[in-house]
């Protein structure tokens, strides 16, 4: 229970942390797109709120050496804008599938993590990108991988007094894809989502899944299989019958979906396998098109 009441709107991360240090029950308001729905429907009873809206430092992104650091207050709309979208096309694609333009203007990357929904659209790609969640309290700071950070459906590893300040993503030479299946052509909660990242520099494959388990899921077996079949030296993904399908099959094996009002477990697994296959083919085709010296077969 909060001991204070009212709203604090600090302008610095330190200011936010001071408020939380004094009263860890203070509720943290980011873009409001989840928070306010809960308030409006009586599921959240705010007493004391600390808002992040005026913390300018959290609303920007920057390249720090070989990493991108994206402030927790960066909105989906910002992620979709040119420079950042060029660096992280998969994240931009995921951001574009979030809600509506109105939601994308308000909702933030940190907020998506804060809600920690298995259907959070940015989480599969953050997982696939090996993003680190930078967490601070007044007295400490730490970083967690997304799969360490999300520990259950809408449950995360933040301790009282802690907030997410940013996410840190390795900058590399990557191919990225994001696909989301929903039963409407816009403004829909994901039935299944898949993000695929192939890191040509480090020889690593990342594959994150959404809405097919209690948390966003990493498809490790599929990642390992794909990393094994890629011709890293020549930067080629093999164009062989059944490879895309096999990748899709392995991706679906990683999932543990449920039946609910949005879809069935069976369809979710199935859709995931199709998305896996399609992501494989898309990245394979992209790679053939952009590599110099390789005859374009399209």
């Amino acid at each position, binding site marked *: 229970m909060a001991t204070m*009441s*009212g*709203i604090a*709107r600090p302008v610095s991360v330190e200011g936010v942390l001071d408020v939380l240090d004094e009263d860890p029950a203070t509720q943290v*308001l980011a*873009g*409001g*797109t989840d*928070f*306010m*729905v809960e*308030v*409006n*429907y009586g599921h*959240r*009873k*705010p*007493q*004391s*709120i600390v*808002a992040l*809206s005026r913390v300018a430092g959290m609303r920007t992104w920057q390249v720090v050496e070989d990493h991108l650091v994206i402030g927790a207050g960066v909105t989906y*709309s910002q992620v979709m804008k040119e420079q950042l979208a060029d660096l992280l096309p998969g994240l931009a694609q995921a951001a574009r599938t979030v*809600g*509506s*333009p*109105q*939601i994308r*203007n*308000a909702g933030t990357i940190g907020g998506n993590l804060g809600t920690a929904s298995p259907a959070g659209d940015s989480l599969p790609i953050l997982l696939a990108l090996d993003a680190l969640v930078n967490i601070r309290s007044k007295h400490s700071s730490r970083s967690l991988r997304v799969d360490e950070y999300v520990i259950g459906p809408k449950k995360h590893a933040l301790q009282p007094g802690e907030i997410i300040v940013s996410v840190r993503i390795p900058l590399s030479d990557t191919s990225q894809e994001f696909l989301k299946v929903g039963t409407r*052509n*816009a*403004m829909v909660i994901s039935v299944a989502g898949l993000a695929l990242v192939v890191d040509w520099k480090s020889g690593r494959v990342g594959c994150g899944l959404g809405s097919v388990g209690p948390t966003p899921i990493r498809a490790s077996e599929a990642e390992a299989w794909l990393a094994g079949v890629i011709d890293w030296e020549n930067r080629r993904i093999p164009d062989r019958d059944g490879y895309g399908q096999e990748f899709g099959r392995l991706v679906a094996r990683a999932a543990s979906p449920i039946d609910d009002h949005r879809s069935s477990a069976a369809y979710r697994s199935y859709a995931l396998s199709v998305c896996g296959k399609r992501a494989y083919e898309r990245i394979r085709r992209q790679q053939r098109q952009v590599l110099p010296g390789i005859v374009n077969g399209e």
Partner: protein
Amino acid sequence: MDASANKVNTVLPESTVRVDLRINGRNYVLPDIWIGENLLYVLRERLGLPGSKNACEQGECGSCSVLVDGMLVCACLVLAADASGCEITTVEGLGRTLADPADSSGQEEGQTQGQGQTQGQGQGQTQEERQGQGQGEQDLAGPTIIASSMPMPQLQDISVTDGMSFEGALSRMHPVQQAFVNTGAIQCGFCTPGLVVAVADLLSHNPHPSALQVREAISGNLCRCTGYGRIFAAVRRAEELLAGTA
């Protein structure tokens, strides 16, 4: 089971805050509101600005679209107490941005009175009255022009000329509003204010959107009456009005 003993009207839920808002160029002070109130509630129920509509209160319909610091957002998802210091534009402010400041409030207030009597029956109150007794004081500095980049409206498409009041009303509207009126994009009208704000926002950033860009830009604004056909037509008409090619 009647609980009305000696309770006062002003009882609020626990935890209240003071909020200062700047809306459509005017400043409003709300000394005491419940901390959980969203901007939409404050606009509609405290400030006499019910143009933004309350269709879902979960950001899924766009009926309450407003601009906060130039960003199109759902007012139902903005905590009012977190909007202090922001520049807020609602559908009520959209038309005002085009009005000649010299003829803005006085003339319209005159109409308010006349009309109020026509429909009045004495039970209602006008917005002005509500603001006057309002939960807040208002800055009487008068309206300022907000989106001065908006060109003046073009009126070529009003085909009836003998109606002073209709044209007069149209002339004080944003071109997007004019376009919605004239293309049949309005039926029940509940989604209209949100759509008008969203389309104005779209055209201010992208004066000549493709059909697909239009669809994506307003995909967060649900309409249940029109099937969207006339709304697409309205966007095209607004585009022409703004470009001066209508």
